[in-house]
């Protein structure tokens, strides 16, 4: 059963004017700081790679976005499982917000991977394991969003999305395995998507700060998206009291007393 709260106008507090709070401002501040460090070290201070030159710098964006995307999808998967168990709105909102953010980060990952490919290999797309897997996963989660967008009963919509969330995440390692075996036949691993263990000094520092920056941005976006979704649900609920009244008034005046 959906846990709808019936609030009458007199008891509800004035609606918040935004999804920000002290917490998110602090978080956002930290994210900006780490972003700044990552940009400075990544783009300027750290040395270019011996073989790949300055193009290696894309890694400071590519790795964080792909990590953030995976984190988001794991959150979706866990939330989906928790929703099917507990059936509370919190888990549904968390899962769907995380899925949106995950799709965003995955799209960015693919775009910057393609850009890097253009600069190094001369082509926007190569069927290398990372990009291929990302493309498949991206489409799977776009499917999640497509189903989310279908108007339905809250419980129905949440159940459908929870099922997709679980089915999709289980597929991730399988897709990885299949694609790695397949593409691994024809070419070796590329640098893309891995943290080269030979990185030292400023490169490693740039890598870690960009990683932290990416994760902070992801969490910040997630909190805002979650709150926006929460407010949307509350807005729909406020209509319930009124709907109940109107419904009861449907009883014809001749016979009816309201219940």
């Amino acid at each position, binding site marked *: 059963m959906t846990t709808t709260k019936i609030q009458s106008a007199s008891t509800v507090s004035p609606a918040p004017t935004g999804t920000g709070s002290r917490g998110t401002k602090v978080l956002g501040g930290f994210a900006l700081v780490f972003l700044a460090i990552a940009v400075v070290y990544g783009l300027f201070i750290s040395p270019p790679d011996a073989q790949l030159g300055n193009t290696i710098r894309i890694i400071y964006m590519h790795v964080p976005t792909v990590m953030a995307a995976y984190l988001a999808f794991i959150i979706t998967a866990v939330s989906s499982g928790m929703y099917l168990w507990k059936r509370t709105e919190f888990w549904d909102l968390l899962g769907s917000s995380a899925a949106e953010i995950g799709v965003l980060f995955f799209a960015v990952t693919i775009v910057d991977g393609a850009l890097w490919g253009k600069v190094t290999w001369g082509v926007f797309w190569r069927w290398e394991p990372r990009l291929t897997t990302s493309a498949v996963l991206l489409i799977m989660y776009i499917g999640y969003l497509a189903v989310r967008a279908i108007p339905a009963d809250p419980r129905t919509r949440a159940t459908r999305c929870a099922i997709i969330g679980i089915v999709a995440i289980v597929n991730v390692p399988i897709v990885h395995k299949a694609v790695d075996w397949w593409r691994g036949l024809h070419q070796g691993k590329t640098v893309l998507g891995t943290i080269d263990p030979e990185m030292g000094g400023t490169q490693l520092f740039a890598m870690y700060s960009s990683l932290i920056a990416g994760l902070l941005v992801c969490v910040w976006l997630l909190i805002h998206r979650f709150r926006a979704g929460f407010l949307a649900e509350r807005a729909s609920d406020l209509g319930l009291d009124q709907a109940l009244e109107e*419904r009861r008034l449907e*009883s014809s005046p001749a016979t009816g007393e309201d*219940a």
Partner: protein
Amino acid sequence: MSAIVHLRSAVALIGRFPALAGVDLDVHAGEILLLRGPNGAGKTTLLGVCAGLIGLSTGEAVVLGEDLTKNRRAVRRRVGLLGHDSFLYQDLSVVENLDFWSRAAAATVADGRAALDRLGVASRLFELPVHSLSAGQRRRVSFAAMICRRPELWLLDEPHAGLDSAGRDLVDGLMSEAATSGATVLFASHELDRAEHVAHRSVTISGGVILDETPPSTETRAEL
């Protein structure tokens, strides 16, 4: 007599629309209760709640001793629902449908055939696909699929609709038989003349709530 159906302040939402807006209802064993009300009043939803198909968002619902707010699934095997949809596979024949649905409900194929006989479905129709039957014949087959489960609570949504006069008499007879053998019947109908003769009691639902009750007429009260 404890109540077979007990609803208190039952609110059922379809999406965000309150189809039931606070229903109070008690139905006792062996009763035949007529549910009257205009279109859109909530009759179909009420039957769905009693069948354990639709959940409540607030309120109490106890049917056949099962608390539906805790577990809706337990009661389903024990009720029979005759709805607006046929609940039949159009491409399968009459007997193929009955064989499947009776066995699905842990009844036997023989129960299914007996039900078809009871509903007056001619045996020449047995092998025909359901889509080739007339609406009235299909209704009888749906009814048969319901009674072969031997439900303790009958939930009928306009059982007379689509049937000829003989069919309607048959339905009245089935309902009375069910009640005398201990089952409880809750049926929604617009056929008020006929329905009031067979029902022990009637309630009116409108705007998602029960409005009033009609006390049993003297003849039917004697049969209770």
